[in-house]
């Protein structure tokens, strides 16, 4: 980028429609599943089985009561076999749930997540402002908050490193998800699995470009609750991040710090490539505090 002014203004411009990005991208493959066994209509116009699935969901949403296959079939004027097939697929994707005792159906949890998971990124920044400031003050490093945007990390908030040196606001910048701590936290907690196996670009010798190994790392990130990048994006730089969750436990963003390896990692041996424990705890505390404000933790 030329000129600091141009960059500040340009970087600030959020890509269009970013607010809803995390949930707007639906894998077309999931619809192929719905179509399997039915006639696939490859022309513009309504797809009958999707219309029928929608009718079933609407019916289940219309009352507090659970409904059985026969009831649904009668209400919709469809053969029971057709209804059962659609229900099985809806159950597979989590949109409906079947009661163990009665065999009746109700709306599934995944459906509620899709409807209400959207957290405006500008709202996320507003809610996170105090805690991200505190994190920068305690860690003495710069802080970023990111959300997933088409497989990359969109920086939605940036707090300068508190040393009064000249720094440029990076809100609106995109970071590679597989090579940043923010990205790994987001990928590890992403129900849509936006990991693009073919897009694993190597930035340094330390970047993980093997999809299998990356998936193992993400499983570990998910289990321990935080991620790091040790010289995986830029040589000499390290980042640490943890997930921000909302009241339903859905990961709506990640918060992290980044800085030179000499400051963020230990001094010798194995420690020299491991982020310092107190910095990890500052990051996790900030993430928990924001999550608590969003209602994720009931105390």
């Amino acid at each position, binding site marked *: 980028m030329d000129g*600091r*002014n*141009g960059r*500040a*203004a340009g970087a*600030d*411009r*959020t890509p*269009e429609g970013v*607010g809803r990005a995390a949930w707007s991208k639906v894998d077309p493959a999931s619809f192929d599943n719905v179509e399997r066994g039915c006639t696939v209509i490859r022309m513009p116009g309504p797809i009958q089985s999707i219309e029928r699935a929608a009718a079933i969901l609407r019916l289940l949403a219309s009352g507090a009561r659970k409904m059985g296959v026969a009831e649904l079939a009668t209400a919709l004027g469809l053969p029971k076999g057709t209804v059962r097939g659609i229900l099985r697929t809806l159950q597979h994707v989590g949109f409906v749930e079947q009661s163990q005792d009665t065999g009746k159906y109700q709306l599934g949890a995944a459906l509620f997540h899709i409807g209400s998971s959207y957290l*405006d*990124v*500008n*709202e996320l*920044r*507003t809610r996170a*402002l*105090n*805690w991200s*400031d*505190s994190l*920068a*003050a*305690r860690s003495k490093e710069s802080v970023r908050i990111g959300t997933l945007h088409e497989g990359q990390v969109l920086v939605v908030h*940036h*707090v*300068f490193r*508190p*040393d*009064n040196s000249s*720094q440029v*606001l990076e*809100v609106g910048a995109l970071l590679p998800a597989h090579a940043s701590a923010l990205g790994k936290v987001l990928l590890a907690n992403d129900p849509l699995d936006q990991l693009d196996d073919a897009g694993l670009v190597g930035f340094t010798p330390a970047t993980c470009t093997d999809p299998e190994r990356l998936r193992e790392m993400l499983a570990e990130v998910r289990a321990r609750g935080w991620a790091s990048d040790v010289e995986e994006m830029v040589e000499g730089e390290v980042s640490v991040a943890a997930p921000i969750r909302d009241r339903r436990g859905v990961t709506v963003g990640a918060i992290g710090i980044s800085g030179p390896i000499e400051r963020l990692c230990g001094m010798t041996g194995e420690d020299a490539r491991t982020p310092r424990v107190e910095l990890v705890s500052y990051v996790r505390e900030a993430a928990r505090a924001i999550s608590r404000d969003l209602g994720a933790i009931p105390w």
Partner: protein
Amino acid sequence: MSHRYIAAIDQGTTSSRCIVFDEAGSIVSVAQKEHRQIFPKPGWVEHDAEEIWANVLDVVHGALQKMSITVHDLAAVGITNQRETTVLWDAETGVPVHNAIVWQDTRTDQLVRELAADGGQDRFRAKCGLPLATYFAGPKIRWLLDNVPGVRERAERGEVLFGTMDTWLIWKLTGRHVTDVTNASRTMLMDLATLDWDDELLAAMGVPRAMLPEIRSSAEVYGHATGTLAGLPVASALGDQQAALFGQTCYAPGEGKCTYGTGSFLLLNTGEQPVQSANGLLTTVGYKIGDQPATYALEGAIAVTGSLVQWFRDNMGLIASAPEIETLARTVEDNGGCYFVPAFAGLFAPHWRGDARGVIAGLTGYITKGHLARAVLEATAWQTREVVDAMNADSGVELTTLRVDGGMTANNLLMQFLSDVLDVPVVRPIIAETTCLGAAYAAGLAVGFWPNTDALRENWHRAAEWLPSMEAGVRERGYRKWQKAVQRTMDWIDEDDE
């Protein structure tokens, strides 16, 4: 380990908060509780002072509990408060004689007009730095004395006491009846030069001296708390805007800040001499540390900024939450020629026109809700520009950087536009909660938690900076259109309007 932290109580217009800070000035814990807004009649706004006191105790204990610390871990507590809100209470029982009258309340409108009829709106300005207006505490005291039966006689005997919220809380905490210079400077009853109640002002306003608190500095130990916070030194009091100035470490003449909240307040440190404004600004006390000389400030108040976004959310229903306005505004490239002047209750600084009402100018068939969202945000920036121009003219010093704080600083689009229209860098410090921080700093200075203001300056760090990138021509055209839109708000209210 004891005395590791400083607590600040922010008794605000809609809620009371307690924030605990560590030595680096970082937030350790926060608790907040809203209180009721009581609207007995159109234009009247009241608070229940007893409810506020209960909430303040709750949030202090709440903030301590969240961190699993006790009152013994605190070196002191400082107070910052909504300014001008007025409460009178019985000195014997401690029971308020009436709900507190909130700063926004306009019930003293008639009284203020009567006072202005004899000598004009600025008749007391030379002494107290303020024009006659409904906001200030003096007229509110007078209204209570005139309208609550028996209170005037008892006030004359010192049996009924007056306080702004700082005084009320210090009295409840320590039993002492004191206020600080910044809160006293908002009553219209204090002489800015002597920093004492002025007999001429008291006589004109009809307020007996016996009911008034002692005026102290902003940073000293007023007393020690009793009750559940027993032993805790109560060591600072600052009006909210002055606290923000102090928290932003604007300790040198020419340094200033703007706090973006419901309304917005730009304060500029003018040093040890009060500067009289020729451009519609207020002269006020910035702060006073113990025995040191007072520092004065010029203040530009903008009535409607964040509240315009709230109006856009609640009354227009175009967004679900205030931060979403940025998302909506970014759906378009510019304001489409649309300007929104939110003179909902007239124009404040620097115009002071009570006969103005809001306009949306430049409407065409092209305008979408996105353009309106832009115009709503831009209104805050243009109003700031008008106040900065007035301040530059009054002080004779050009503002070179604007320090900002408050909730709206989370809005990057607004902060960039603000930098563009002011043509100076806009800087947000690492602690956006400068109001609480200022009260904590003053209390910490008073008990030696921090040695001096230089140590506090070292805690100030840039968290974000927006640099101007607008072409001069675009800025000038935009400002010209804004000023034309402002002209169109004036002379709207007629004599026979209710």
